[in-house]
């Protein structure tokens, strides 16, 4: 029996699921609820292993961990529909997540944070976690705080205690988020170079993007 994944043929046996065949041949399909140590345990709950059935079965998106193989079944793991759906699922999972871990600087082994990166789900700035964002913002008091342009997930530890953010989790690399964050500096009286110098303490990539966005925005 043979199935086709992403235009390539793979041999398989009766009773296998599409995910098993993909895993056996190193075809990348993300999963969170599937437990490789316990093959029987596949609640098909995380919806991340979705593939698009193109031929030989009911057309549309189906979870590959529960989709049985049948001769001639043709699926795609990379179609636009698959990408969009997985991205949405990841975002929905994140909205339920206890802590915003998207910006974790240490992890690289966490499947979930990897998913967020793969599907380009961006982080939030320190302001989102800062209790002073409405009243008593350090910037409005003339203190140079780079919280608006740096990644959070510290629960705004420093700004919460009246100490300006120094960006341990680095300056954001997403242009839209930086543009949004830079608006916070519009009312504060800081020179472009001052902001860049403060941003440089723990960041490199982000500072390059920041510099570019500042130029576009005509920051002085």
């Amino acid at each position, binding site marked *: 029996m043979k199935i086709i994944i992403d235009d390539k043929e793979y041999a398989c046996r009766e009773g296998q699921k599409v995910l098993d065949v993909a895993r056996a041949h190193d075809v990348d399909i993300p999963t969170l609820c599937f437990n490789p140590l316990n093959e029987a345990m596949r609640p098909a709950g995380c919806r991340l292993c979705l593939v698009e059935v193109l031929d030989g079965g009911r057309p549309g998106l189906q979870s590959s961990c529960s989709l049985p193989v049948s001769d001639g079944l043709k699926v795609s793991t990379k179609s636009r529909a698959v990408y969009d759906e997985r991205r949405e699922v990841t975002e929905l999972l994140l909205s339920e997540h206890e802590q915003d871990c998207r910006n974790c600087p240490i992890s690289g082994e966490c499947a979930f944070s990897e998913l967020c990166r793969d599907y380009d789900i961006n982080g939030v700035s320190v302001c989102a976690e800062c209790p002073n964002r409405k009243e008593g913002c350090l910037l409005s008091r003339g203190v140079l705080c780079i919280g608006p342009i740096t990644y959070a997930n510290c629960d705004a*530890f*420093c700004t919460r*205690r*009246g*100490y300006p953010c*120094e960006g*341990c989790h680095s300056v954001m690399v997403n242009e839209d988020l930086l543009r949004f964050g830079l608006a916070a500096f519009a009312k504060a009286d800081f020179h472009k170079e001052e902001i860049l*110098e403060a941003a440089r*303490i723990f960041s490199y990539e982000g500072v390059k993007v920041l510099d570019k966005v500042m130029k576009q925005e005509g920051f002085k």
Partner: protein
Amino acid sequence: MKEVNIHVEHLTRVEGHGNIILNARNGKVEKVMWEVSEAPRLFEAFVRGKPYHQLARITSRICGICSIGHTLASLKATEAAMGIEISAQSQLLRRLAIHGENMQSHILHLGYLVSPDLFGVGSVIPLVKTHPDAVLSIVKLHRVANEYSDAICGRTTHPTNLVPGGLHKSPSPVKLRKCREMLLDSVDTANAVAELLLDNAGALPDFSRETEFIALTSEEEYALYDGLIGSTDAGTYPAEAYESVVNEFVVPHSTAKYCKNKRESFMVGALARFNLNHKHLSPMAAKWAERFGLKAVCHNPFMNNVAQLVEFVHSIEDSIAIIDRLLEDYKDEPRPRITPKAGRGIGIVDVPRGILFHDYTYDENGICVKANCVIPTNQNHNNIQHDFEAFAPTLLGRPEKEIELNLEMLVRAYDPCISCSTHFLKVEWKR
């Protein structure tokens, strides 16, 4: 006699990566070596071109254990370079900060890393079953130390509250009183842990090799935050002379530099501080030193563990005394304003693992143009090597596992922070 070949690659229960090599044949040691294999850290290059107020933030990251010490040494260097005076109250608060870190680091080392050797087990995990009360007491003391550091420094590690010229914000008197209460409450626990370690101190090998001890020393106090560079061999030196005291040099088998002064090597750390400053110990700490048989000048490197315990008790007692002094006349001091100035400054602090030097040069805009940091573990590597050479031959008659354990315990006694000690080395290729 049979051959002994020991190669411990990446010794456990220390911070960072180091290896032990021992080859012996016919009762003779052919090679015994302490290798440092940690990658270079490059911090002295990172800080070049950075403004003065960022330096302590960056160099604090040299270490996650001694971050308070690095911050203080860095601030002292910056303040010395720019001629900044700090208030008496800030000086006392900074002394509290260093006590907090000393407590954090010593209890971590003694409780989690050394005690398994004393109880003859592989890690702290089995102790949870056999000695649950002791482990809980250790965790409690660690927590007190963390909360105390947090209250003074703004964070448990990588402090935000310590800035050039003093403190960002003085901790409130309520916070200080809370710390005092917490410290007072921990005295009994500390005594109980000390009692337990005393019962098991017999596991520490009896080995002595005469060496030089170097630490901060002062006429007035058990020097941690301030003082002169002191040596058991050569009296005192001013801060400016530090380069001629540490005499850093490079060896091929180590990414960390080695040091020596009057002899082939010297030791820094709690034992060095005890040997030089024991007169100024608090009463309870002095009592514990006596009960453990710790007398100056002690040349047994394994007694560094005991000296750490003695210092832990001293830090509790001295902290309480300092808080009492502070509360007599406590002010909410504003954050200091600083005008940068060109100059060179050296900052010295005695941190948990020994004497730490930061040396910065600034230009007239307060931008760092040159930096040098000499980390305590650097200064100890050479002494560890010489201890190995003296200690290994005395062990040869024993089973290989036991020799290995003894050598590991020796390194651990120094409480090395290996990753902090590495620097960039210029590699010369020979083809």
